[in-house]
């Protein structure tokens, strides 16, 4: 296991920086149309131009600029969606795992229900009720994703509870709150972090799906998802419209997966095997 997450971290850093500095990086206004120069191929192809590095789309808008601005939306949505589902899911998982009994049953049935709901259906329902906007995309994604965290955390809590230090904390006079937040939570945080980084990728893909269906970010605001959607119609004549956003999604997902893998190894306290007192 490397010391530093070169591959995964590197990719993520590049995209995060791109998103942060998009107004400066973008070569053109992402929503400005230029109907004279529609469907221009990328600069290195015949017919391309250095001013439009990755070409233009069907309304003459610069693909590169739209990609860079779209990074903002996609990454923001990804981070917010993961955070929200993480907080809600972890909280419920903690309660379920720690208290057991009726509380656990109720929460677990709720997770069952959520996991059974098809994503698309939920997305349509919620956006239909609340209208499409970035905020609502985050809500949809969180609602459809919290159960995975709840399940996972509940399992971890059940395992951590077996440790003697939890019971000894009770003997020491610790109240429920202290036990949950100082004893149990820090010991499940590992799994949480890893899950969250891996989830980032998923959330971005789902955002893409939503935008693809017209439920997500509304035009002319670019997002990788709606760029994909627009580009689909032109695949036969202009491959670059859909390919670059698709590539971007793939790279970010890859990057966060690699980072998550590295993180799992980094946080694994498996150092104790053959140190002093280890069993031979």
């Amino acid at each position, binding site marked *: 296991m490397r010391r530093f997450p070169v591959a995964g971290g590197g990719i993520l850093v590049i995209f995060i920086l791109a998103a942060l500095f998009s107004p400066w990086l973008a070569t053109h206004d992402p929503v400005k149309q230029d109907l004279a120069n529609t469907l221009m191929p990328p600069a290195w192809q015949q017919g391309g131009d250095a001013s439009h590095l990755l070409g233009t789309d069907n309304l003459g808008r610069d693909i590169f600029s739209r990609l860079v601005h779209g990074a903002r939306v996609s990454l923001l949505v990804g981070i917010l969606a993961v955070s929200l589902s993480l907080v809600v899911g972890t909280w419920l998982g903690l309660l379920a795992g720690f208290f057991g009994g009726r509380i656990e049953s109720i929460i677990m049935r709720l997770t069952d229900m959520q996991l059974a709901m098809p994503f698309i259906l939920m997305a349509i329902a919620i956006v239909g009720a609340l209208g499409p906007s970035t905020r609502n995309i985050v809500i949809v994604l969180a609602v459809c994703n919290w159960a995975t965290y709840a399940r996972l955390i509940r399992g971890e809590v059940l395992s951590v509870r077996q440790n*003697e230090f939890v019971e000894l904390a009770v003997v020491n006079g610790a109240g429920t709150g202290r036990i949950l937040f100082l004893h149990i939570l820090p010991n499940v945080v590992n799994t949480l972090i890893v899950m969250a980084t891996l989830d980032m990728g998923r959330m971005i893909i789902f955002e893409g799906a939503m935008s693809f269906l017209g439920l997500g970010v509304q035009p002319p605001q670019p997002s990788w998802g709606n760029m994909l959607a627009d580009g689909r119609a032109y695949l036969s004549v202009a491959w670059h419209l859909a390919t670059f956003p698709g590539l971007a999604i793939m790279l970010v997902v890859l990057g966060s997966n690699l980072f998550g893998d590295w993180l799992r190894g980094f946080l694994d306290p498996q150092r104790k095997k053959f140190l002093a007192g280890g069993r031979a």
Partner: protein
Amino acid sequence: MTRSADYSPTGPEKPPHQAERRPAPRAEQPLVSVEGLHKSFATKTGSGLWKKTGWVRAVEGVSFKIYPGETFGLVGESGCGKSTTGKVILRVLEPSRGRVLFEDQEVSHLKGKGLLKFRSQVQAVYQDPYSSLNPRMRIDHSVAEPLVTHRLLGKEARREKVATLMRKVGLLPEHALRYPHEFSGGQRQRIGIARALAINPRFLVLDEPVSALDVSIQAQILNLLADLQKELRLTYLFISHDLSVVEHICDRVAVMYLGKIVERAESGSLFANPLHPYTQALLSAVPVADPDHLFQAIPLEGEIPSPLNPPPGCRFHPRCPRRMEVCQEQDPRCLEKESGHLVYCHLYD
């Protein structure tokens, strides 16, 4: 666990001296009193449509008193209920029936402030040094936890207290800034002991505190516990399955089998003259570290039955080499054979 033969080392250590035998102080008020304690757990047995709620009768009608300053031993094999008894006394569990009294006050159903006060007097050390400490918590925070939960001492005072405690248990105070995984098993047990002593309790429940340690480390920890008891005037409940350790450190001992006490006496009496057939079998089964010793374990038939379905009458009768008719039908009552030596067996009735 083993009994050593007659061996005297040639090392320059202090020679062993005869321990002061404290006679069981009967006139004194007991510090801890367990009266008719019962504890059962509900379990689901079977599967699917045939699920039934079974009751695991872990502790059935256990009574004893622990006097200030003594070390009371609770001995038995798996499923005997000794750990459960300890946990009920600690109020980690509530009794199903019966009472636990501490300093003459009933603690079985305490809550809130009263419970917190009780906890400041009664602490515990458990068996597994690898899971007794929160791996994500620094040692000094772990040791200081009882002080924090009881809202005692300011930050600075706490730090000093932690340093004192570390020194008391034989560790360097500088190491308090480390994490558990940097310590060995024996050191972790010491840290657990330091934590238990943080709020100056009067009574410690020690549940197999040395069973998971290497022999040489065991001896260190046992000596430490003995020293601390003398210095801080502590009372111990020592739960263990290791008879030689129990004989060494305990003043009085109760032997448990399948949820009940079968014999109770002063340590010397019990080991020199065990009355109950189970105690006799148990003692004979302990291997002796002497190749010339004739190992004659009194054979016991069969296995330890499940506490879900204990045998009727005397719980030990199916395996008892000296069982009689009456043993199958009636629970034996408590008989005092000599002063302080109690046995629950029809043979002596």
